[in-house]
């Protein structure tokens, strides 16, 4: 298969991208360390938001890879390699979780044994919510994800040179195992890192809520990168409007999915109005957080819904780029909204801190860096994939 057939010519990414990544990451790293020294509690909460953002982009991309294999989708095959690059932050998660585990006592109320002993509810939950089991779960879950990431990318990259169709079959089987494992592990991760910040509260749909936002944000990151690279000719010249349209449609679908899940969670709690459940939403409806909540509904659902509804909007690269950035911001806002009110309640409450802007800068820099490292070594599209030709030929009608 020559380069002419796929329309792909390998080019190095410009050095300015690497520089940008290094600058952003170093700013985040240095200011972040200073933040941890000055305001350890505030910094740990702000860092948790950024860490969850990194985690959701990583495993969301991993899910998109598995989804493409298990559904046999062809249109997304030319983009799969970019998802693999984005997912390459997954093995690093365990290292980036260390600061959080070290500052566990300021993050997690339930990690104080003397508090748990006086609280019947927390005592009942202590077989799951205790420090040692938490650390075991973190290691096991991040380990499982890293393993799957390793095998997925190993097979996929090998195919670039060997063009062996069996590798696709292997990855399909791997996806079949990964999807149910992913369902359980992402629920546990969402419960561990986000829901247990308020250990008295519980919501059985919470894992799905986190999943919907994660995949949405990963898709937005993918769409943004695809359009930016394709406009500069780094991808195949045979990508057409229908590829953009499919990405836009999937973004729109996950906008609706998030709205559906978020509203399902809210409505049941609102209707039953039980004190052991509704306080979580009441905390997000007092002390200035009500504006945040309304902003979240607007930014996360209503505006993307209207902006991505029509066919021209889904095929317009400018609109898609703008909405991808918008969606990434909204997802960050969503995570902020999940984490930060818990800090306000524990008495350190105020809305914004310079630390809230430091960590996302570092995380974006990190994502650019890991993407670059991979892009230097490998092709940007999976040139050996048997589905690639049909993926490039993809048309809707």
């Amino acid at each position, binding site marked *: 298969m020559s380069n002419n057939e796929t329309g792909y010519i390998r080019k190095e990414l410009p050095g300015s991208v690497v520089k940008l990544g290094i600058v952003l990451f170093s700013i985040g790293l240095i200011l972040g360390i200073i933040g941890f020294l000055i305001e350890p509690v505030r910094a740990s909460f702000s860092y948790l938001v950024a860490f969850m953002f990194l985690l959701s982009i990583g495993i969301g991309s991993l899910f998109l890879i598995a989804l493409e294999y298990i559904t046999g989708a062809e249109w997304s095959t030319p983009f799969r390699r970019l998802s693999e690059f984005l997912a390459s932050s997954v093995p690093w998660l365990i290292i980036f979780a260390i600061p959080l585990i070290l500052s566990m006592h300021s993050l997690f109320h339930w990690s104080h044994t003397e508090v748990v002993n006086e609280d019947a509810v927390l005592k009942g939950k202590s077989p799951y919510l205790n420090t040692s089991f938490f650390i075991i779960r973190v290691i096991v879950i991040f380990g499982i994800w890293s393993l799957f990431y390793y095998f997925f990318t190993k097979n996929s990259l090998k195919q670039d040179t060997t063009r062996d169709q069996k590798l696709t079959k292997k990855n399909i089987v791997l996806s079949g195992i990964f999807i149910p494992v992913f369902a359980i592990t992402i629920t546990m991760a969402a419960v561990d890192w986000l829901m247990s910040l308020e250990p008295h509260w519980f919501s059985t749909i919470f894992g799905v809520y986190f999943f919907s936002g994660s995949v949405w944000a990963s898709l937005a990151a993918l769409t943004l990168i695809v359009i930016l690279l394709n406009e500069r000719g780094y991808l195949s010249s045979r990508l057409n409007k229908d590829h953009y349209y499919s990405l836009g449609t999937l973004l729109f679908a996950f906008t609706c999915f998030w709205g559906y899940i978020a*509203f399902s969670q*809210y*409505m049941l709690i609102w*209707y039953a*109005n039980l004190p052991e459940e509704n306080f979580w939403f009441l905390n997000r409806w007092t002390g200035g957080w009500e504006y945040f909540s309304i902003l979240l509904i607007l930014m996360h659902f209503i505006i993307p819904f209207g902006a991505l*509804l*029509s*066919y021209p909007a889904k095929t317009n690269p400018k609109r898609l780029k703008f909405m991808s950035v918008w969606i990434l911001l909204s997802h960050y806002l969503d995570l902020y909204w999940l984490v930060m009110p818990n800090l306000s309640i524990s008495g350190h409450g105020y809305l914004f801190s310079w630390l809230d802007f430091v960590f996302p800068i570092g995380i974006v820099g990190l994502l650019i860096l890991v993407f670059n490292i991979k892009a230097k070594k490998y092709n940007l599209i999976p040139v050996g994939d048997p589905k690639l030709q049909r993926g490039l030929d993809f*048309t809707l*009608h």
Partner: protein
Amino acid sequence: MDNKNLYGVTALFDTPNEIIHAAKEVSKAGYKNFDVNTPYPIHGMDRSMGLKRSKVGFVTTFLGFSGTAFILLFMFWTMSIDYPNVIGGKPFFSLPGFIPITFETTVLLGGIATVIGLLALFANLPSNNHPLHDTDYMKAVSGDKYGIVIEASDPNFNEREIISLLNKLGSKKIHSINNPEKEVFPVIQTRFIVFLIVVAFIVSATTYVTLNKIIYIEPFNWMMEQDKLIPQEKSAVFTDNFGMRLPVEGTVARGHLPYPFKGQLNPAETLPNPLLPTKGVLELGKKKFLTYCSPCHGNYADGDSRLRGQFPNPPTLHSQRARDFSDGMIYHIIVNGQNVMPSYESQTTVEDRWAIVHYIRALHRAKNAKLTDLDEVKKESQLNVE
């Protein structure tokens, strides 16, 4: 144009590649009013034919959002204005509870609009007639051939040019199709109406007989088919088949305490009146007197019966003998009856009887008023003036 009745020219091809090529060439030649018929959808056909995107999406969007607006206003009107009910302690207009219905109605109206829009606007229903109907061309493209039809309504239409173009594209079967005569299959005709009526009758009759005679099933009859008492009916609940039961011996109904001197003609002693002549007691007494006593004794107890001789008139109660009766004695007469007067024990309660006694005493005093009584009246009226 040589043939005014011409509908169009059809051509048949053997493979999907040929038809895609033909569609591209015909579109390139500048024809607009042409269509392609294939046994199954072929990818890339829209692009080859140079079709624009379908407009049905606008119909869906418009009616979908109309559904949103309509149902929100409807729920606002019913739940908050016309018939406000407190449900679960929520406000009358509580948006979160309305969202599921709003969502469903949006989807429902959007879906219905899409189907109706497709059928009515884009498939020209209810028209049931098409020139290609029942042609060999249509039979072929429903089987294993791929066909293209260029309509005569196209501005560039020229039969000979088109036939040569299609020949060049490799079609072996080219036909010119004429418009059929008008109204070949009119919807409204007598036979059809009669057919509809007959079908309606048969369906109704069959349904009626089947549901009411053959497979008659009562849906939820647990309440109907239970052991219960039905008025005026034999009952299986008790062994004596009576529905109503007698009270246990010695039962005393409220307000019906038994009278100790019942049946004695001239009681040696009588009961004292337990009630005080308050306004309420006198009003009760007046009501009961006018109900039970006045038909025979008259409204003022003068013995002027309203019964016009159907019953013997009783004597006036303003006689000296009656005035000298003790309260207990009047009570005794109400319970026992006297001469032709029957007992009023069952109609009146103990309280009613004593109230009647008080009212009779009031009538006695009114009929024999003294001048000094007027002083009392004056005092009261002065009090009222002040």
